[in-house]
């Protein structure tokens, strides 16, 4: 039976792995070369974070699990990632908006985790903060450019908000293992809302009110998207179990 720390690590690892996987789908398809490289580098940063979390979880489980077995052999109901990160890429506006919502949350979370009593968790968060700061900067600049851009880009951003906003509530709904770990999501929600409102104001975008929020990801209950993602991600290991490069 895994303890709260282990489950929490898997939640953090699954979330960054799935977002990394989604972002990597832009490889070769980015709107311009520099942005193709930017989104794939962000993918790489997220993958590095996922590896750190998986490696720590595997060490704690101490049952033969490795970072690879945790990433490639678990099923949808075992994955604890946020619903937000499994949503479709959509157009560039939707991708950068998903990144902005997530990274703004992740930066605040990691700043809190830096003070956590578990040293390794604090160390992983401290290491990741530098890269996450860049992710927030990059994505919020894009939200502003596209929101306060042309009629076309503005409308696409409105559509993106419509698609993604309903998954933002889950970020701040504490799962049992988060409460057990002493994570304070209430203060993060407040700061997140302030920051997002400020960026949306500058982007001339409306902050939605009174939207019903979806949840379940943190408990393993996912949208249909995750099935497709895992099919691709896990295909090789499942077809050739134990395969190594």
């Amino acid at each position, binding site marked *: 039976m895994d303890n709260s720390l282990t489950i929490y690590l898997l939640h953090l690892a699954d979330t960054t792995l799935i977002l990394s996987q989604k972002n990597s789908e832009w490889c070769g398809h980015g709107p311009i070369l520099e942005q193709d490289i930017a989104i794939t580098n962000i993918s790489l940063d997220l993958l590095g974070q996922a590896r750190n979390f998986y490696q720590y979880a595997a060490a704690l489980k101490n049952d033969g699990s490795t970072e690879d077995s945790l990433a490639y052999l678990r099923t949808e109901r075992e994955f604890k990632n946020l619903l937000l990160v499994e949503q479709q890429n959509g157009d560039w506006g939707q991708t950068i908006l998903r990144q902005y919502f997530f990274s703004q949350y992740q930066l605040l979370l990691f700043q809190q985790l830096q003070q956590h009593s578990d040293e390794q968790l604090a160390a992983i968060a401290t290491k990741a903060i530098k890269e996450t700061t*860049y992710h927030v900067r990059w994505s919020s600049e894009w939200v502003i450019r596209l929101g306060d851009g042309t009629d076309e880009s503005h409308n696409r951003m409105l559509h993106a908000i419509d698609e993604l906003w309903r998954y933002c509530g889950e970020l701040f709904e504490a799962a049992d293992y988060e409460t057990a770990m002493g994570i304070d999501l209430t203060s993060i929600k407040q700061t997140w809302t302030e920051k997002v409102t400020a960026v949306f104001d500058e982007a001339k975008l409306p902050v939605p009110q009174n939207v019903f929020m979806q949840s379940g990801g943190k408990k393993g209950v996912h949208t249909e998207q995750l099935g497709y993602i895992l099919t691709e991600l896990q295909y090789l290991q499942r077809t050739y179990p134990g395969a190594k490069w």
Partner: protein
Amino acid sequence: MNNEQLHIDTSASEQKIWSILSTVVDPEVPVLTVLDLGIVREVQINGSEVEVIITPTYTGCPAMDMIAMNIRLALAEQGYKTVKVTSVLSPAWTTDWMTEAGKEKLKQYGIAPPNPKQQVCNDKLFAANEAVQCPHCNSYHTHRISEFGSTACKALYQCDECKEPFDYFKCH
């Protein structure tokens, strides 16, 4: 370096390990050794086992696995059969740990070394680009083409004086 060692012959063994490590180079930027990068934190000798404690640079740096392997190989070639390479995350690696010699080697190789003041952690939106000196002609009239260069740790710049493009090792 472990300052608690009292035995002269043990610290001579440690010195030998450090000098072997100084031959292990970064696979992407082969003019830099792992010591220039400041990623070897500590060397510990426990009987016949050697433990090398390293720190990753960027979280997702794909070269780290190869560097760990090259450390093992370099030591094995010199007869050290039982080698453990441990990765420690804290305190977090920063470009401040790069040696001055390392920075000079980067410049000679054509890569602009990281500026002394950390810029990448700046969270100000639409901020002005940091001033980077051209490693070829030393002019500061340069502009950034892309936040990312050939690797995650580097950005792509071009010099407006000599027109040469060059990579800049970002502050981290």
